[in-house]
C-alpha cells in the first residue's frame, strides 16, 4: 500500500524545557500513517512531556510539530481546533469526568461535534464500550470502576469520534494480562483495518513486542533519542548497551 508510507506526524528540531531546565534537546522524528509508534525511556526522561507537546498542551521551547502538515505549535483558533479534532487522547490517570456516567463520558464528544441523532449516539457509545470490554457498565459512574476499567473507558472516549491519531499515555498500566492482551489486539486491529495511527507511551515490554511497528527511546542523560526502530531489532542488535539492557530487563551496571 502506498499511503502507509506518508508521514502523518513530523516532529522537527523539537526542544522541550521547563523554565531553564531542558528536558528534550533538539529531536526530530516521523510517524507514518497507520503505524503503532511507541515512545520509550526510563522514568523522568520526558516521555509524557513529549506527548503533551504533540497534543498541543505544552508549547515547546523551539521546533515544529506537524500533524497532517499543519503545525500545532503555531496554530490558533479554528486551525488549532481542526487539528485537535484529528486526535484522541487517553490520559495516564484516565481523566474521566467524575460527574458523568461512563455512557455520558463517551457520548460527550459525539454530542458536541456531530449531528448524529440520539439513538445513533447511544448505539455508537455502546459499540465503543463493547470494543474495550465495558458493555454492561455504561450506567456506572467512574468512581465505581476499578483503575483498569477507568483506563479502558478513557480509551473508549478517546475513540468516540474515530480520530485518525490516538495518543495513549500508559494504556496498559494497571490492567490484568488478559485485558492488556485484548487491548493490544484492539490497537492492532484499529491500526491495520482503519489506518488509525497510535502514539503510545508505555513501559510494558510484552505489549511493545506485540503492537509496536516502531519505537523511539529517549535517554534523560543525553536528552535525545538514543535508539529508533523495531523493538525486536533493538533488543538483539542495538549497539547501545543501555538500550539492550532495557529490552532485556537487565540491571543497569552504571546506575546513576
Amino acid at each position, binding site marked *: 500500500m502506498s499511503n502507509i508510507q506518508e508521514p502523518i506526524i513530523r516532529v522537527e528540531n523539537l526542544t522541550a524545557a521547563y523554565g531553564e531546565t531542558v528536558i528534550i534537546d533538539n529531536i526530530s522524528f516521523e510517524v507514518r500513517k497507520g503505524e503503532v509508534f511507541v515512545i520509550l525511556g526510563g522514568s523522568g526522561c520526558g516521555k509524557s512531556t513529549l506527548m503533551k507537546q504533540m497534543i498541543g498542551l505544552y508549547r515547546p521551547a523551539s521546533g515544529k510539530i506537524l500533524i497532517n502538515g499543519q503545525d500545532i505549535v503555531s496554530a490558533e483558533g479554528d486551525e488549532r481546533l481542526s487539528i485537535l479534532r484529528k486526535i484522541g487522547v487517553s490520559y495516564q490517570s484516565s481523566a474521566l469526568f467524575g460527574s458523568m456516567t461512563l455512557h455520558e463520558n463517551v457520548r460527550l464528544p459525539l454530542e458536541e461535534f456531530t449531528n448524529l*441523532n440520539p439513538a445513533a449516539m447511544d448505539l455508537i457509545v455502546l459499540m465503543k464500550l463493547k470494543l474495550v470490554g465495558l458493555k454492561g457498565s455504561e450506567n456506572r459512574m467512574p468512581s465505581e470502576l476499578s483503575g483498569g476499567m477507568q483506563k479502558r473507558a478513557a480509551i473508549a472516549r478517546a475513540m468516540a469520534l474515530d480520530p485518525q491519531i490516538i495518543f495513549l499515555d500508559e494504556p496498559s498500566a494497571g490492567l490484568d494480562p488478559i485485558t492488556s492482551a485484548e487491548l493490544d489486539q484492539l490497537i492492532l486491529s484499529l491500526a491495520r483495518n482503519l489506518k488509525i495511527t497510535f502514539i503510545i507511551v508505555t513501559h510494558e515490554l510484552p505489549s511493545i513486542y506485540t503492537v509496536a511497528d516502531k519505537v523511539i527511546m529517549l535517554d534523560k542523560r543525553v536528552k535525545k533519542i538514543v535508539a529508533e526502530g523495531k523493538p525486536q531489532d533493538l533488543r538483539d542488535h542495538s549497539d547501545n548497551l543501555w538500550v539492550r539492557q532495557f529490552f532485556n530487563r537487565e540491571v543497569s551496571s552504571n546506575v546513576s
Partner: protein
Amino acid sequence: MLVNTATIHTDVNEQGILTIKIDGHLDSTTTGDMWLKATKVLEQTSATRVVVDASKIDYCDGSGVGLLIELLRRQQKTGGELEIKGLRTEFQKLMDLFDPAEFAEPHIAKPRKAKLPEEVGRATFTVWQNIHTQISFLGELVVALIYAAGNPRRVRWKDAFLIAETAGVNAFPIIALISFLIGLIMAFQAAIPMRQFGAEIYVADLIALSVLRELGPLMTAIIMAGRTSSAFAAELGTMKVNEEIDALTTMGLDPVRFLVVTRVIATLAMMPLLTVLANLFGVMGGSVVLLSMGYPLTTYLDRVMLSADYIDLLGGLLKSLAFGLLVAGIGCLRGLKTTTGASAVGDSTTRAVVSVIILIVITDGIFSVVYFYLGI
C-alpha cells in the same frame, strides 16, 4: 482540505426487495445524515428483504459501522433479512468485532422519578446521620485536643503556624475592610433618624454595643466560614480523593490528630485576635459619621467607653472562640467525609460553608439567651 461526503440511493424492485446504496465517506460528520435517511426508508417500506450495497463506500469508521449494525438490528427485530454486499474487507473486519444481536436493546437507564415520601425519608435520614457524624467527630476532636494538651511536643507546630498565617493573618485586610464599612453604614443609617430627636451622639452607644457584642464576632466568623472552612474542606477533600488520608491512616497517623488538631488550634488562636481587630475597625467606621457631623473624636470615644465595658468585649471574644471551633471543625469534618471524584470536593466545600454559617447563627442565639440570664 477536501470535504468528505456520502450519498444514499434507495430503490424497491418488483420482488419487494429494498436496495440501499451508500456511496462515499462514512465518518462521524457524514453518518448522521445517512442514518436518518436510511432508517426512515426502512420504516416506510418495511421490506422483509433488504440489500445494502456497500461497494462504493471508500471509508467507513466506527460510526459508519454503527449505521450498518443499526440496520441489521432493525431487520432482526422485525424478522426481516438484510444482506450487506461488497463491503471492503478492512471494513468487514471492523464490523466482525460486533454482533448486532448484542445491541438488540440499547438500554440506557433514565434517572428515576423522585417520590415525595421517599425523598422526605431520605432527607430525614441524612439529617440524622449528619448530627450523628458531627457529634462523633466532636468527640474524636476533643480526645485529640486533650491528647495534644498533654503532649504539646507531638503537635505539629510548624503546620499550625503556617495555617495561622494563611487562615488568620491573610484574612486581616478583608475583615478590617468589611468591619469598617459595616460600622460606617450602620452609624450613617442610625444617625439620620436619631438626628431628628437631637440624639445623634447616642449613635456611639449603638455602635459600641452592637459591634462589640454581636457584629464583630459574627462578621469575623462568617468571613472565616467563607474563607477558611471552605479552604479546609477543599484541601482535606482533595487529600481524601488522592488517597493521602488513606496513606496517613496506614502509616498509623490519625488524620484527626495530624490534620485537624493543627487547624483547630491555629483557628482558635486567630479568631479572638481577628475579632478584636474587627471591633476596632467597626468602631472606627462609626466615628467617621459622627466626625463628619462635627463632633470631636474625644466625645465619640468617651461615649463608647461609657456605654460598653470589658464584659461586653470578653463576652464577644468568648463567642468568637466557639465560632472558631465551628469554622475549623466543620470544615475539616466535611473534607474528611469527602467521597471520590472532583464533584465530591465541590459538594464538601458547599456543605462545609452552609453548615458552618447555620451553626454559627444557632450558637450565637444560644449565647444571647445565656448572656441574658447571666445578666451580661
